């Protein structure tokens, strides 16, 4: 039932220049494409089928972040006319959950944010330590930030053993 060999059918865009820390975990069926650089800092975890697109600008993902499956980062803005030029930058300890979409265009997600399942962050948005709810609302996270960051870290440490790292494929 394994579908890993079907990887080749994913449309191969231009291979973006990447800059990974050696402690980054990224499986081979993550999708990276675009022309600008993609930088991922230490201990960050990318799930299979996450999609990073640097066609519109560079992508920076900070330390100890998690990008879950089917999350899309650097998507073309819905309203291309009003969009600002630029890429996406994620801080440290950011969690981008399943099916979340982050548009390109100078979008900044601050440290410790959580972008919940299926939410969409518009082009040029700048959010701090918040949780973006699945219903599109935003709420400042007043919980003890350290406790949550520790949780994220523990999650990374467990899950990285389950995901086959294949950094070299993207280099």
């Amino acid at each position, binding site marked *: *039932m*394994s*579908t890993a060999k*079907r990887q080749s059918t994913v449309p191969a865009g231009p291979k973006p220049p990447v800059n990974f820390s050696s402690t980054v975990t990224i499986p081979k069926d993550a999708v990276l494409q675009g022309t600008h650089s993609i930088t991922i800092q230490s201990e960050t975890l990318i799930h*299979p*089928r996450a999609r990073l697109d640097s066609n519109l600008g560079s992508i920076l993902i900070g330390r100890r972040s998690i990008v879950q*499956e*089917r999350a899309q980062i650097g998507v073309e803005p819905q309203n291309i006319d009003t969009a600002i030029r630029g890429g996406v930058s994620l801080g440290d300890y950011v969690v981008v959950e*399943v*099916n979340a979409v982050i548009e390109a265009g100078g979008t900044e997600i601050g440290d410790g944010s959580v972008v*919940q*399942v*299926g939410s969409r962050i518009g082009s040029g948005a700048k959010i701090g330590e918040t949780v973006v*709810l*699945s*219903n599109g609302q935003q709420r400042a996270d007043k919980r003890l930030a350290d406790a949550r960051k520790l*949780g994220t870290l*523990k*999650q990374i*440490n*467990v*899950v990285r053993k*389950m*995901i086959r790292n294949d950094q070299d494929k993207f280099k």
Partner: protein
Amino acid sequence: MSRRQVKGDYIETETGNKVSRKANLLGTQNMVLGGKVVIQPEVMIRGDLVRTAPSSSSSGGTAAPSTTAIQTGRYCFFSKGVVLRPPGRRYKGQFSHMPMRIGHHVFIGQDTVVQAATIGDHARIGKNCVIGEFAIIKECVEVLDGAVVPPNMVIPNYSIVAGQPARVVGEVPEGGGPDENGLRGLYSTVGNNPQNPDM
């Protein structure tokens, strides 16, 4: 392409499971499909996210160390784009995923993301829903399209829930319930030799 046409778009197992070749199953060794389960294209099932915390302390050490991450019953139907993902949490200081159990005759609509702990028999989940981590959905529950069920929510039998976050908005009528799901019929409309949906 032509080779695949001959092979059929679905893998049909001995127990009657129909799995689309375009589905995305990870860690298949940790999945138990109950038979006559349909997995449509672009479904993603994260069987690789297995439980790491020892289960002995919590569930009485007799149980064999199972690595089953996702277990489904008979006649489940996972529509296109569904993501099934075992929920994870910190337990006694350690992070671990926990297994997800899905009952018989469960229908899950298009593009719904499920991170529930359990889904009871005959539950029906609409499209574009989000089922939060460790949600417990009991038997015969109906989740309407677009609902976001918060993490840890418990939904009792025969409830209809909707909204973001989901709340109980009604009850499944007596005439609905178990035998109204029609998943046996739906099962035959999918696969390598699909029947026409009508009669």
